[in-house]
Structures are given as structure tokens and as C-alpha cells.
């Protein structure tokens, strides 16, 4: 009924006037902002009725409008298991030059409305009997593990936990006091390695053996920057214990593309691949590959040719700008491949 009254718009578009959370789609409102360090802030978010809940270790995508443009970023739930009617928390560390993380650190307030995507990920504790656990985290990689620690504390489940956390110094050692408290209450081992201020070493086989002698018997969860992920992956693989290692991979930063360089163009739905020159519109690349994408003016003004970019970046030939995030719609009649791309065509 509401649809017939509101047509051609969704009824939620009008409800949004009363309460932003009633607007279309999954969204949430920041209820509390807690500063964890000079560069990190925790946001407690109340999602609207579309929220399906999330488990500790999973992440949500946050849609944040920065300077008028919506950007999506993934953040782990740091509060533990989150039911459908509950709030959840993400902890955002401001990355140098990072648009969204910086904006959230500086501007997020109670009342700020954010777009959301459902919690996903399998970086979770097993629901059945818990094995012995080993958490290795660095920097903001601690967030999913913090969620798991809090979840374990909340349920009171008996667990044998060893947590190695790397951070540059005490100021950036997130949740230090809380972890110390949890470790004491639950008899967990909580090791903080301060690489800059105390000169502690980064991850190595020797260090692991010294900190946790029975590491090979534990289910390992690792989350941190690329360097840590590679070293741990190598180490577990050399020991032939890769199945015991679980890693949380956040979206890698795209390598900057040299001017004019094209790449491989993959047409996702049509299952075709073609070579895309750095100055050739993707529409032509598609047509030469035998596809017939919808198009109009072929000069970038009518929006008939919009296609969703799945991966990679494109170059707008009318302006020279290289841009693109997964999910963006691009005008293929004036955009060329800037590196390898995957199009939803």
C-alpha cells in the first residue's frame, strides 16, 4: 500500500524525513564515540531493522560520505557477537592519507548516520568445542581479535588463549588495559611487543617459539599488515600446519598505475577476456571482444553505457583522471582500462 502511495519512490524515502534510520537500505546511527588513542576511535553503531546480526571476527562495510562522495570501507566488529537488535562497535584507526579513516576519526559524532552492509567473513571462532587459541595481531589488526576476546569474556566460555600483539609504542597499543584485565580474569596469556619504543623484534620463528612454545598445537588467528601476514603464512606453511592458520585479509591497496598503461579486461558475466589499451574506451574493447553493451552518445554525456566496475581502476579519457573502487558505475564509452580491470558485463 505504501508503495502505491509513494510510487515512483520507495515509501522509505518519505519515512527518512522523520528518522534517518527508516530510510532505504541497511544503515546505522553512531551512538557513542570512544577515543582509543590519538589516532583511533571506536564507534558504537545502532543498525536499523535490516541488520541481520554479526559474529565476533566478522567485518562490516561502512559507507561514509566524505566531501559529498560515498566511500565504502571494511571494519571488523570489535565488540564481540552482535545480535539483530543490538548495537555493534567498530574501531577505526586513521591511516595516513586515508580519506574515510581520517574523516571518521575527526568527524564521527553521536547521531552521525552511516550506510552499512551486512556482516560477512569467516574469521571466526568455531561454534563447537574451542581448541587452544593463538592470536597474533599488529596495529589495527587487533580489532577482530578484540571482538573475539570480548565474546569469550561475555559467554564465560573456558578458553586457553595466547595473544601476541605488536604495536609501535604504548600510545598506539590499543585496548591495552582491557586486555590486561581480561587476561588476568581468565588466565589468558597477553603479550605486548612494542617494536619502536622498546625495540622489540617483529615476528620471527624464534620469537614465536620463545613466546608460545606450544604454538603448533594451537588454532592460530592472524590479522595485521601485509608483512605480518606473509611471515606467518610462510612460517606455518614451512611447518606443514597451514590448515591451523586463519588470516583476515582486508582489501589490499591498489598499486598506482603508470600514466597511459592499460591492462587485461575481464568481462565477468560474459566470461571473456580482452586486452585493453590505456587509451581505448572499454566500450570499444567490449565490442571488439564480440559483446554488444548498451550505449548511447559514445561521448560521455548520456549515461546510457554505465557498467559496474568489479575490480581495478579506469581512466576517464575526457579528463585523464584515474579512479575506481569496486562497485562504481563507469561510463565505458569514455573510460579506458588503467591496469587490469574486471567489469560486470
Amino acid at each position: 500500500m505504501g508503495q502505491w502511495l509513494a510510487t515512483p519512490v520507495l515509501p522509505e524515502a518519505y519515512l527518512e524525513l522523520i528518522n534517518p534510520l527508516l530510510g532505504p537500505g541497511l544503515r546505522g546511527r553512531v551512538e557513542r564515540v570512544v577515543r582509543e588513542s590519538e589516532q583511533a576511535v571506536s564507534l558504537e553503531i545502532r543498525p536499523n531493522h535490516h541488520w541481520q546480526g554479526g559474529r565476533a571476527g566478522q567485518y562490516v562495510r561502512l559507507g561514509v560520505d566524505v566531501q559529498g562522495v560515498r566511500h565504502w570501507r571494511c571494519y571488523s566488529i570489535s565488540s564481540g557477537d552482535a545480535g539483530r537488535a543490538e548495537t555493534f562497535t567498530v574501531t577505526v584507526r586513521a591511516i595516513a592519507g586515508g580519506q574515510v579513516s581520517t574523516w571518521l576519526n575527526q568527524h564521527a559524532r553521536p547521531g552521525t548516520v552511516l550506510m552499512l552492509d551486512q556482516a560477512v567473513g569467516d574469521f571466526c571462532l568455531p561454534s563447537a568445542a574451542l581448541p587452544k587459541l593463538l592470536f597474533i595481531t599488529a596495529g589495527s589488526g587487533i580489532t577482530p581479535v578484540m571482538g573475539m576476546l570480548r565474546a569469550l569474556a561475555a559467554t564465560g566460555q573456558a578458553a586457553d588463549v595466547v595473544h601476541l600483539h605488536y604495536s609501535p609504542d604504548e600510545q598506539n597499543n590499543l585496548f591495552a588495559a582491557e586486555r590486561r584485565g581480561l587476561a588476568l580474569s581468565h588466565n589468558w596469556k597477553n603479550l605486548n611487543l612494542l617494536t619502536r619504543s622498546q625495540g622489540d623484534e617483529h615476528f620471527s620463528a624464534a620469537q614465536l617459539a620463545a613466546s608460545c612454545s606450544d604454538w603448533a598445537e594451537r588454532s592460530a588467528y592472524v590479522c595485521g599488515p601485509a608483512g605480518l601476514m606473509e611471515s606467518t603464512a610462510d612460517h606455518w606453511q614451512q611447518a606443514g600446519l597451514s590448515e591451523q592458520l586463519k588470516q583476515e585479509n582486508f582489501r589490499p591497496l591498489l598499486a598506482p598505475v603508470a600514466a597511459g598503461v592499460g591492462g587485461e579486461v575481464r568481462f565477468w558475466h560474459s566470461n571473456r577476456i580482452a586486452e585493453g589499451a590505456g587509451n581505448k574506451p572499454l566500450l570499444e574493447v567490449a565490442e571488439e571482444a564480440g559483446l554488444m553493451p548498451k550505449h548511447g552518445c559514445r561521448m560521455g554525456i548520456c549515461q546510457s553505457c554505465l557498467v559496474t566496475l568489479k575490480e581495478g581502476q579506469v581512466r576517464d579519457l575526457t579528463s585523464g583522471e584515474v579512479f575506481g573502487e569496486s562497485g562504481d558505475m563507469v561510463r565505458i564509452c569514455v573510460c579506458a582500462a588503467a591496469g587490469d580491470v574486471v567489469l560486470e558485463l
Partner: protein
Amino acid sequence: MTAALKMNSNFLPGNPVEAPRTGRLPVGLTDAEVQQFGAEIDALRQRIMASLGEQDARYIRRVIKVQRYLEVGGRGLLFAGILPPAWLAGTAMLSIAKILENMEIGHNIMHGQWDWMRDPNIHSSSWEWDTVCPSEQWQHSHNYMHHKWTNVVGMDRDVGYGILRMSERQPWHPAHLAQPITNAMLATFFQWGVALHDLEFERVRSGEKSLAEAWAQLKQIGKKAGKQVGKDYVLFPLLAGPFFLPVLLGNMSANLARNLWTYMIIFCGHFPDGVEDFLPEDIENEDKAHWYLRQLLGSANISGGRLLNVMSGNLSHQMEHHLFPDMPSNRYAEAAIEVRAICEKYGLPYNSKPLHRQFGSVMRKVLRLSLPSRKARSKA
């Protein structure tokens, strides 16, 4: 004479029509000068597009919010429409809401002007506007056909919409004698004219367009129209129970007001005196710079203040809109300052007059062209 303004006296085979240049538009530019002009227009565009940010996003969100409040308020008041002040206020609010949605919001969002925000709810790929015309068909006939072939007689179907003679270059037909009446009907039922525009009846008649394709489009129009008519003329009146009549009349009046206003603004876009139209040969091998020039010469602005700007969907800046169709409309006024300066620099006309003058010249044209052209007469 630049390539863009070559004349050709054989418009239709066996039916030569002479279309003399008025001489009031001095476009004696060399090709190099046209390229320079194009480069300056391009640079202006890049500069403005690179500066889009939070203020712009806030603008469109605010306009949408105001429009929705006006709509809800208007419809609410109409439920009390048995009282004349409530009916008048309600109808006025709903009319303004429909005008805003049609022009500043719908038309501009569908042009992709706000796609840069990456908000799926305010995006050219998903916006469905509050008229009987399906967005998809509009985007084809308008964004693509009209904006690419602007004012090229025989290619831009907005020149006359297939039923009116709005250019000396269109051959006269006895049916055009009735055009003052046809024009009035089009104005009254404008949203229906817009809805049927992309069907391209004449191409179906000539066999160029398949009946199957037209039928599929007609079905899509039927679906959209059904929902719109259902909402305005059935559901809302029903909800009012015994007080259905003021609601029905209010909704009809609001639609009519929107039709008349949008018709007037749109007809002032490319028909007033001084606006050029072109022949297909004029645009052979047209490059971007010449395309910019044709957009400028083929459009006209309406001078006025901020209220006119927002109520006309910033089509008061029709020239800027045609130069930069995907530039957010709130920036047209800013662009206009520089466009005007660039025109002065190159000795190009900048056609901007008040609404009554532009519309007056359009009405005179409707009357004048309903009669066969007198030979060798310059366009008044």
C-alpha cells in the same frame, strides 16, 4: 564561415527550402579559433567538476528534502481541501513539489549530474521521476538523442516533437495550420507528450522502427502511467473518503500546473528568436569544439534570479546545461559568468532574456510557422 554553420538549401529531396542566415550572429571564426574556444570551455568544465564536494551534495539532498516535505504537506492539506484556503495551499505546495521533482531533481539526476556522489538512491541508473514517462525512455530520447543532435533538424526530434513546425527548415504541411491548437494541447497534457515522445511514431509509420519495439515501449509506458494515475487520481482520492473531490481536483490541478510550467521552460530552451538550428550536413565530422559551439548557438537562457533558477531546474541556464549536461545544476550560474566572458571574447552571441520575452518569441514562432514560409525572408 565555420564548418558548423554551412548552409545547404536542399533540405528534403524535391522540396528545397531556403534558410537564410540572419547575419545577427557573427560567427566568423577560423577553425583554430573554434578549437581555442573549445579548449577554454573544456578547461572551465574540468575546473568546476574537480571542485565538486560536500556543499554540492548538501544542495541536492536539501532540495530533495524540501520537495518531499512540500509533497507530503500539500497532499496532507488537500485532505482538508473542502476548505478553500487548504485546497489552494495544498494544490500550490503539491504543484511546486511536482515541478521541483520534475526539473531540478528528476531531470538533473537522470542526466547523471549527481552520479559522482555514488549514492545509489540519487543516481541516473535508478531514479524514476514522478511523471507518466518511464525514466529509461526519457534518458534515450533526451540524454542521448536530444543532447547529441541538439537542434539538428531531421535528427533532433525535440525540434517540433514530431507534431509542430518549429523551424523554417521543416517543410510546411497543411496540418500545421492547426498548430496553435496542437501547441495548447501539448502544453496542457505535456507529461503525456513527453511519455510518448520516445515511441517515435513517424519512424514506426515509415517502417524504420519495428512495431514490436514500439509495443514493448508502450507497455512500459502503460505500466508507469498506471501507477501514476492510480496514485494521483484513484488512491489518494479514495483515502479521503467523502472528501475525495478536492483531493482529485487538487492532484489534477497540480499535474496541470506542472505540465504548463515545464512546457513553458522547455520551449524556451531552443525555440526563441536568435537560436540557431542546423542541418545534418552541418555536423559532418563534428569535433568536440564544434559540438560545444553548436550547443551554445542552439540554446537560449532565461534571465532571472535564484528562484527562477531552482524552479526551472536551472534550465534558465540552458546554454550551460547543453555545454555541460552532467555538471550539477547548482553550478550552472557560476559557469555562466565565465561562459558569458568566453562568448564575448570570441564574439559569440549569449542569448539570455527574461521569461516573457523568450516565451513571447516562441509563441510568435508557433503562429508564424503554422503558415508556409515566405521565400527569402529572414527569421524575425
